């Protein structure tokens, strides 16, 4: 009976890890795949290497003998394989424990759990009890988030359909991702757009359908000194805002009053049931009409005139 696959994988790992020099494929076959036919061996060996690599095991291909460059072998450099020494104080280890509870996204939460396991295995005691204390929570509801993150970590090019708000239909985009950024409560992808030949920022919530990985990992380099956060800030389309002038009934519109830049008390209003105040505030244009309407007869929008007309049109239509 052939050895179970996990046994074979582990033996392969140990063999490549303990030998100083690269081991030729033929030798690997003799020792670990003795009963397999050549084509079956090729397939199995390729798959096994991929499985180990997917665990994060660095398998290198190197020349065995400097005089015969075409003879290559495989090795796992111990310094690239193992976690370097990490010394954490008890206090620092507690911070790691808290950080491992920050992510609310399943895959990311799993990644931090795995990281803590490795640190624990390295001899650090991360206390995971008594950590039900306040901590910020990080979420990522955008379906495109996970693939983009993986692509950034692996330096793999991606393509996806992207819906710009001003376009009729989504457009296919091909991107080399440089980073994923959270900026004012949203996730953005920053990268090099292969078709437009320039850096671009994409709002992940506007990605339609699946993000596809294209080509091998490590396919490109991120330009040195790239600051994705700064790029996102510079290029993310700002939410269009407008200065609104409102008449607000005395004692009403608390939310608006808190956001107001200027409040003029006791101005002439559209009726004399109560007193009226004039508020000036900067608001996102989108949703301004909704917000004003929700206040009913307590708030009257004076400016911008275009939004005022929308309000009137919507009320008229609702009453027709």
């Amino acid at each position: 009976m052939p050895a179970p696959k996990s046994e074979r994988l582990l033996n392969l790992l140990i063999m490549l890890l303990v030998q100083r020099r690269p081991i030729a494929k033929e030798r690997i076959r003799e020792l670990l795949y003795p009963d397999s036919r050549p084509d079956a061996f090729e397939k199995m060996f390729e798959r096994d290497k991929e499985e180990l690599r997917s665990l994060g095991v660095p398998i290198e291909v190197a020349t065995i003998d400097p005089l015969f460059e075409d003879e290559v072998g495989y090795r796992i450099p111990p310094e690239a394989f193992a976690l370097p020494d990490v010394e954490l104080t008890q206090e620092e280890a507690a911070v790691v424990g808290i950080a491992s509870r920050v992510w609310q996204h399943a895959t990311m939460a799993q990644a931090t759990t795995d990281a803590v396991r490795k640190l624990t295995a390295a001899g650090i005691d991360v206390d995971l009890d008594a950590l039900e204390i306040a901590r910020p929570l990080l979420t990522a509801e955008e379906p495109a988030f996970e693939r983009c993150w993986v692509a950034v970590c692996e330096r793999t090019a991606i393509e996806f359909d992207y819906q710009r708000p001003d376009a009729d239909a989504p457009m296919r985009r091909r991107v080399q991702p440089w980073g994923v950024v959270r900026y004012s409560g949203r996730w953005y992808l920053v990268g090099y757009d292969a078709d437009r030949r320039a850096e671009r920022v994409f709002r992940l919530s506007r990605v339609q359908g699946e993000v596809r990985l294209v080509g091998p990992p490590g396919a490109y380099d991120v330009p040195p000194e790239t600051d994705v956060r700064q790029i996102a800030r510079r290029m993310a389309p700002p939410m269009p805002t407008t200065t609104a002038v409102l008449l607000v009934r005395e004692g009403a519109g608390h939310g608006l009053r808190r956001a107001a830049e200027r409040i003029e008390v006791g101005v002439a209003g559209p009726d004399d049931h109560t007193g009226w105040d004039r508020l000036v505030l900067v608001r996102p244009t989108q949703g301004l009409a909704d917000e004003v309407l929700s206040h009913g007869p307590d708030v009257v929008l004076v400016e911008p005139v275009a939004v005022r007309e929308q309000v009137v049109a919507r009320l008229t239509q609702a009453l027709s």
Partner: protein
Amino acid sequence: MSRQTPAPGARDQVARLLTLVPFLHHRDGVRLEEAAALLGTTPKQVVQDLKVLFMCGLPGGLPDDLIDVDLDAIVTEEGSPVTEGVIRVENADYLARPLRLSATEASAMIVALRMLRDTGSAGATPELVDRVLAKLEAAAGAPHVEITPSPRDAQQVRVAQLTALVDEAVARGVQLRLLYFVPSRDEESERVVDPYGVVAHGVFSYLDAHCHRAEDDRLFRLDRITKAELLPSPRTTPARAPRDLAEGLFNDDATPDATVVTLRLEPPATWATDYYPMRDVRPREDGSAEVDLVVVDRRWLTRLLLRLAPHATVVRPAEFTETFTARAQETLSLYR
């Protein structure tokens, strides 16, 4: 007879062993159940993993080359795991260190730490978090991943701080004074409450508390608490666990004033189904939807209808249409 491990589990099994062996190496007398807890698996699985390890070792296959596992200490003669059994592994020094953090693990951790630092929560001072970040970044070995959270997601930080304050009030058994904003009534009010705890429901977190103004238990959305402070006065009502919101925010039996209202939402208004708790949503062919929602406060419904105008209409009961129409007419008259 050794059971063959199913292929899809092989990778995971190797991953577990690469964590387990260093864990054992750094500690003395690790019991089977401890190892299972670390790996997030069962003692039985750990035994199976160790049986695989037992078959591995240096190439050559001589007895001395193989890893030695004392299986007798962790498996009974009948083959069931001994959870109290101490795991002993020898001849595996070359696996004494765990794998490096993968790029995803390292970056997920680093982003979480930055978030902690930027929010200054949980008593983690920026200096302390920076020390941890420096150590992990040095150890990660992964290419530096340019992933950054927004420095301050103000709302989230605020909610985290309020949660901490509530937890402290609960732990100390004291009251809280809140300034609370109720958009449906457009009013801001001061209340003294005996807090039970913070619970999450959907995208929002709520404070469950006994409100002395209402003289009843109430839920307060944390992001609408504009101010909160600890009071020296002890709570006057008994503490209990915060209520479970899994079933939804409204327990219809407990709110006698509640009415079920059916609305027709045209496509521009269907977003509301994602934002407000709906009891039922019935999408229609033309993209519109008919929804049922539980309304406790009529003013809230009127505000919602105005906000969605003219894309939302009341199907039943008719009285709500009248209220809305009167309100809309009054509003429109102010623009004439």
